[in-house]
């Protein structure tokens, strides 16, 4: 039996249940998503887009799904103390794919800002959600997005009204919690109206030593002159599989920073598609992966310069140890007439062992002449001369290697526009290299 069949059967049997436990707006696109999924099937490695990740293999095993929306007896605030020190954030939790109802008293947001369960807000403000939900995540092009749209019952909505500035960063912690092999389908919808500003930090954690498979579809609408930062930090374990499809649409003069950091994982596939559809829009897309053992990190990015005068900066760095596999495919499309585009893409990779593998595929597709576009990719090792220089100065080889690796990925951390988070990440990265992760201090979850 093909892997997709079990999902087709499940949906056919449980469609009514899925819909009953969700909101009407979320139910609307399910039928089309189902048709698309049946037509597409899971992509194979012959698909250029999924050359480096065998989707079938990850979806084939039997996972439990919480279609009945049973609540987990967990109060995350009591067990989770992993928040970034010295940083005051408004903290929220998603347990598997349900938004946690316990709201922390410290979480205060400016008036008019909505942050909460996608399902609940979709019931309260159906007009608002209908306007945006599923508008970027095209189910006819990607089977994982289609699958997510079929099954997603809840998730998070963030809405920042016109000219509102959310000063305090918002932190969202996704906790994976289950006693059996488990699948979650999460959905995040972010809307920033004209002139709005916000920062969101999303952390992924897994609490139990079972196999997790999570699909997450994130849609970001950045209105004119809006500023938005999205940081994603993954610290799970070796038996999690994560498929994250992030779709961004930017209007004129908006500024978006996307930074995806994979510190600990099993298999991760991040797909990022950014549409620059208003003049003067700017996007910085950064990513970093530190992987060892059998970890696998596959980042697939696509930046679409649709109009003139837009800027994109892309920086991805990988450190691969053990038998880790890294893949990076970045495509930049400059459409006809998108003059004065400036686009830079850099991908640098360190392979530390013979078994580690790196695949990189930077691509430029340009149909306009007055543009400045460049890309660069390297795969290599630490500089022997630098190591020697440091050893001469009494630094042990091991320490010298650590320092250089640390400096190597630091460039990505430096793109973060939140000082406290930057400091915290410096620490986390160092700990990761020293092999002390993923044990956050004082955290009961990570054991």
């Amino acid at each position, binding site marked *: 039996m093909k892997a997709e069949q079990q999902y087709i059967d499940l949906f056919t049997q449980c469609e009514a249940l899925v819909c009953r436990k969700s909101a009407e707006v979320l139910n609307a696109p399910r039928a089309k998503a189902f048709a698309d999924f049946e037509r597409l099937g899971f992509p194979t490695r012959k698909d*250029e887009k999924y050359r480096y990740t065998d989707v079938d293999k990850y979806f084939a095993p039997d996972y439990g799904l919480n279609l009945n929306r049973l609540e987990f007896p967990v109060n995350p605030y009591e067990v989770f103390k992993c928040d970034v020190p010295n940083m005051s954030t408004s903290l929220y939790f998603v347990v598997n794919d349900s938004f946690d109802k316990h709201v922390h008293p410290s979480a205060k947001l400016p008036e008019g800002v909505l942050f909460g369960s996608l399902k609940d807000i979709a019931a309260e403000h159906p007009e608002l959600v209908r306007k945006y939900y599923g508008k970027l995540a095209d189910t006819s092009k990607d089977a994982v997005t289609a699958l997510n749209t079929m099954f997603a019952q809840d998730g998070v909505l963030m809405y920042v009204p016109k000219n509102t500035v959310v000063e305090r960063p918002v932190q969202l912690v996704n906790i994976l919690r289950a006693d059996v092999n488990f699948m979650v389908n999460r959905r995040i919808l972010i809307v920033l109206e004209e002139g709005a500003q916000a920062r969101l930090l999303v952390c992924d954690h897994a609490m139990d030593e079972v196999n997790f498979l999570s699909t997450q579809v994130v849609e970001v609408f950045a209105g004119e002159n809006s500023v938005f930062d999205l940081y994603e930090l993954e610290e799970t374990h070796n038996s999690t599989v994560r498929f994250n499809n992030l779709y961004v649409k930017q209007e004129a003069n908006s500024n978006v920073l996307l930074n995806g950091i994979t510190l600990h994982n099993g298999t991760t596939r991040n797909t990022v598609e950014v549409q620059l559809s208003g003049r003067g829009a700017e996007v910085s897309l950064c990513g970093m992966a530190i992987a060892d053992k059998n970890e696998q990190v596959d980042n697939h990015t696509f930046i679409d310069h649709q109009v003139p005068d837009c800027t994109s900066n892309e920086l991805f760095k990988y450190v691969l140890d053990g038998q880790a596999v890294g893949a990076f495919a970045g495509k930049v499309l400059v459409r*006809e*007439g998108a*003059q004065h585009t400036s686009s830079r893409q850099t991908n640098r*990779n360190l*392979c*530390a*062992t*013979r078994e*580690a*593998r*790196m*695949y*990189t*595929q*930077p*691509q*430029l*597709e*340009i*149909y*306009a*002449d*007055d*543009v*400045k*576009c*460049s*890309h*660069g*990719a*390297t*795969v*290599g*090792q630490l500089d022997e001369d630098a190591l020697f220089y440091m050893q001469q100065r009494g630094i042990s080889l091991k320490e010298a290697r650590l320092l250089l690796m640390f400096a190597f990925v630091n460039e990505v951390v430096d793109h973060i526009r939140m000082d406290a988070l930057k400091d915290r990440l410096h620490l986390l990265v160092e700990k990761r290299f020293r092999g002390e992760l993923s044990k956050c201090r004082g955290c009961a979850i990570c054991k």
Partner: protein
Amino acid sequence: MQIEPNKYVKELTQEKYKYGFTTDIHTDIIEKGLNEDVVRLISSRKGEPDWLLEFRLKAFRHWQTMDMPEWAHLNIPDIDYQAISYYADPTAKKKDGPKSVDDIDPELLKTFDKLGIPLEERLALSGMAVDAVMDSVSVKTTFKETLMEKGIIFCSISEAVREHPDLVRKYLGSVVGYRDNFFAALNSAVFSDGSFVYIPKGVRCPMELSTYFRINAANTGQFERTLIVADDDSYVSYLEGCTAPMRDENQLHAAIVEIVVLDRAEVKYSTVQNWYPGDAEGKGGVYNFVTKRGNCKGEGSKLSWTQVETGSAITWKYPSCILSGDNSTAEFYSVAVTNNFQQADTGTKMIHLGKNTRSTIVSKGISAGRSQNSYRGLVRVAEKADNARNYSQCDSLLLGSLCGAHTFPYMDVHNETAVVEHEATTSKISEDQIFYCNQRGISTEDAVGLIVNGYAKEVLNKLPMEFAVEAQKLLSVSLEGSVG
């Protein structure tokens, strides 16, 4: 920025495609269509041994199971493989083929003279031996005897099959198997003439070897096959040139070039590709779908590809290197120019298998008019290829706002000691550069020519003298009317 066309360039382009004439000569063309009988017919016309016929038939049967690949960044109209004639022989008058220059039809001689390729040795450029191929047959190979004194075999592949069957049998299909790809299978089934070169151990070939390909007959395809074997410690520099008449129909050219480089040998392969590119409206032109691959089999061997691609309506080729010998080196230098409605999807593959192997890729794309120009390349470092080193640089220059320039590099690294670098930039000629030249009394049109030539210089420098001059001229002609 409106630039008056360069006078010199204008003169040249008003003749448009200089090589677009046809030769009126009796050509024996077999019936259109492709089936096993056609394959057998080609083989029998060439008087081939059974093993080669078997090879062709195997390839043909395999080809029938394949579909035309669609992954390239090209827009290829459907090709009707039954509407093409697969064998055209312009030397058919003479029964046994020409013995000396005197036996060759004077029309043919005139044609090659007109193309600047004199076939009479006393007239020829010194230091260059030529194998002239028209349609499916090699017309004449010059300096064959002189080369033979050194033990160098330089002849058409049909002749090599007759005279040196062991060598041909040993190496034919050893680098590009008939199952390799759609066009390789097609070529293996119906290939006609091409050149065969064998450089014996320790011999440095004293002159440039070159093959000139000419398509003349209408509604035919050219399926040449070239095989170069450089034995231990030898050296050869090989050039390839090609032209075709101007026609409204598209003509298919699907060649295979195989190169085997043994211990410490060095092969330099240069191409100036100038097939008819079609007219300014994109009508006609040659489809150039070629499989070129070399195997640096020997220890310390070296292979260098240099190509200047200015012609063809569609160019689709990736001259590649398999670096299987330890300490072997490969280079790829390319300038690809597309104008009007031309399309190109070209680049290279460097497969590092041996230890301490090195490869360099320098690719310069220039697109103008409404053309699409893509670089596609693969650098693969296998598990056992310790200390592999690759450097790739792909630059694109855009002249005009309706053209496209694309880069699709792939890097697969399976060994931690490898160092692989890729860099690419896309830009247009900046106004600052033009202004700088203007300040120094250089007119805008000259400045553009200067900048384009300077941009491509890194590659042109790698060409042998005679070709470099021609290539430089070609560059300016191909780009005429596109600057501004």
